[in-house]
């Protein structure tokens, strides 16, 4: 009889614990750190150095959220995830936020119970081939074997592209980005396909980067951005605006060097962002200096870009689409007002 009643009690307990999912902000404050899902290692976006410190464009979003919520950008617990693991980790509540070069697609937005909080990098899928093949265009790749990472939009775009152009190919699918690289190096496949930013990152990781070339074709739109669970709008807003603050700071000309000066002497827009005017932070449920902390500790988007993937990094990626909208790009933050 005891056995039965304990089972019944367990059953009831399971039945009652429905919907304890909102309140990520409270959880984060209580825990004192943001749990952030990143890649297992992708140069420029999320990578770990010899000392175990994470850096990258995606990592800076994690840091910005930590700075906004906890006032300290170092209070982040990084969870390296493969492409396959990432959504489950977010759905199950293991991480508070996923910032892992993840493409915003219709299916992911509508059927996974997730929300994309914006775009922090506009990317597109490209191809990398060995110089030896003498291939100049992706349209010459009929019959090639392609190395891809499992569980990505890349797999789907590739199939579309070859089908649309009436070409055949062999899909060699690996679990991680590193495995696709070693597959490419060993000659298992002729072409490695991924988002262009990743191709540059993978290319500099090759034993001989000059032996490979990135083809000019871009075959897809890949807007990459941070993701949160659906159903916690307060947290969704915090992540969305933390990322926007990075972009808006650059647009307003606020950077980590001049942020202290701007806070007191800046124009109204700058002061509103930095919390000396208005109540932007309060409306998010954060302190008034939320964006000040982001810019002071992480920098603005432009600084983060140049430091991680731009001219100050080994990747040397041009701003291109990722420049501000008034600089020829499409980066556009809604106004903080």
């Amino acid at each position: 009889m005891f056995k039965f009643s304990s089972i019944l009690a367990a059953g009831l307990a399971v039945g009652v614990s429905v919907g304890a999912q909102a309140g990520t902000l409270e959880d984060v404050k209580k825990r004192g750190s943001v749990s952030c899902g990143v890649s297992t290692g992708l140069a420029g976006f999320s990578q770990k150095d010899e000392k175990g410190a994470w850096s990258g464009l995606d990592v800076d979003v994690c840091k910005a959220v930590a700075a906004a919520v906890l006032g300290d950008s170092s209070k982040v617990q990084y969870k390296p995830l493969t492409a396959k693991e990432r959504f489950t980790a977010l759905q199950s509540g293991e991480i508070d936020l996923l910032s892992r070069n993840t493409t915003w697609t219709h299916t992911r937005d509508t059927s996974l119970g997730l929300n994309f909080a914006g775009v922090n990098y506009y990317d597109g899928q490209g191809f990398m081939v060995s110089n030896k093949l003498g291939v100049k265009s992706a349209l010459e790749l009929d019959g090639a074997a392609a190395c891809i990472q499992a569980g990505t939009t890349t797999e789907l775009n590739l199939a579309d592209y070859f089908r649309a152009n009436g070409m055949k190919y062999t899909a060699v699918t690996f679990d991680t980005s590193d495995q696709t690289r070693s597959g490419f190096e060993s000659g298992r496949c002729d072409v490695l396909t991924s988002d262009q930013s990743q191709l540059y990152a993978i290319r500099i990781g090759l034993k001989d980067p000059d032996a490979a070339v990135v083809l000019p074709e871009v075959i897809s739109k890949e807007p990459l951005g941070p993701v949160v669970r659906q159903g916690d709008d307060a947290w969704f807003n915090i992540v969305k605006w933390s990322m926007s603050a990075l972009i808006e700071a650059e647009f307003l000309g606020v950077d980590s060097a001049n942020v202290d000066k701007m806070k007191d002497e800046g124009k109204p827009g700058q002061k509103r962002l930095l919390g000396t005017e208005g109540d932007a932070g309060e409306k998010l449920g954060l302190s008034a200096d939320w964006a000040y902390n982001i810019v002071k500790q992480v920098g603005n988007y432009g600084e983060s870009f140049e430091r991680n993937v731009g001219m100050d990094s080994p990747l040397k990626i041009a701003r291109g689409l990722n420049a501000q909208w008034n600089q020829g790009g499409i980066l556009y933050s809604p106004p903080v007002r």
Partner: protein
Amino acid sequence: MSAEHATAKSASFFNNPRNRALIYQALLLFGLGFFFYSIVSNALANMEARGIKSGFGFLFTASGFDILMSLVPYDATSTYGRTFLVGLLNTILVSIIGIILATLLGFVMGVAYFSNNWLVKRLSVVYVEIFRNIPLLLQVFFWYFAVLAALPSARESMAIGEVIFLNVRGLFLPDLIGESGSSIVYASIGVAVVAIYMMRRWAKKRQDDTGEQFPILWVGLGIFFGLPLLTALVTGLPFYWEFPELKGFNFRGGITVIPELMALTIALAVYTGAFIAEAVRAGVQSVPHGQTEAARSLGLKESRIMSLIIVPQAMRVIVPLLNSEYQSLVKNSTLATAIGYPDLFTVFVGTSLNQTGQAIEIVFMTMAVYFAINMTISFGMNRFNSAVALVERK
């Protein structure tokens, strides 16, 4: 429940031990039912609340991605249901080849342990100790990244007589393609198998009746190869060879054995073979030496002692062990995901799960498949076990 009180007559319905037992069982059943019901309904409600899609409708939508190797026609327009089938067949393929190779290797190495040749015996010991003690994942990586990835590129393939090619993209073999009339030859293989079975029955009966032996092996081999060959000649050889040819980037035509399949089957066969060798050794050692001596004193040849006296008795120990080794092999085949062999785990729990996000349905289906495969193996091996079990006097 205490059966000894069952005879006691009780005035009350509830004091009757039988009734009480039934009530307890019913309550337990109800409790368990409620427990699982609440888990399932809770999961569904939570998923609904979080906007996560559920249901099996995705099996009928187009997958949109390609798979490296499939035994049935498959492309990006095929459904997820088809993806499931492709993965399932690939898993079964690697399991069957793995089991056959592991059994052969295991039996050879297990018997080699009893060899009088010092070198052969040492070889068996070294093989077992090395491959049994290294993690399987490491061995899979070894075969894939160290051995097969070191092969030359497609344009510099190793070739045997310009018909068989081996390179980093795999092993390319000529394919025998049947023209009209080839089905008669395939049918003749079936006829040959039936004929061999009949012959064995006849030979056994004759030996029981007269004591005369019949050369089953040689006649059997003769029928198995002779009959189809004869049929092929009569029908005018309705076959042609399709040779692999280097066209553009890759070899086309013929049969392609992808390196992922090779690496995985070699790793599984070598690893499991080491355990089977140990099982065989244990089985042979379990047969008392007196059996061998008794057989010798009857004047049996050494080879017949092994096949008629030792092996049948050893099998009783070996078969239950084999059962679990085979099951482990099937489960271990999920390591395919580490090197990208498109087995069920890789294409379904890997890619499909990620593209659809329907974790519960996909993981459940996959678990059901491995459960079913292993139950089938278990069933077959149990039948085999009862066939080799000691037949007691009735």
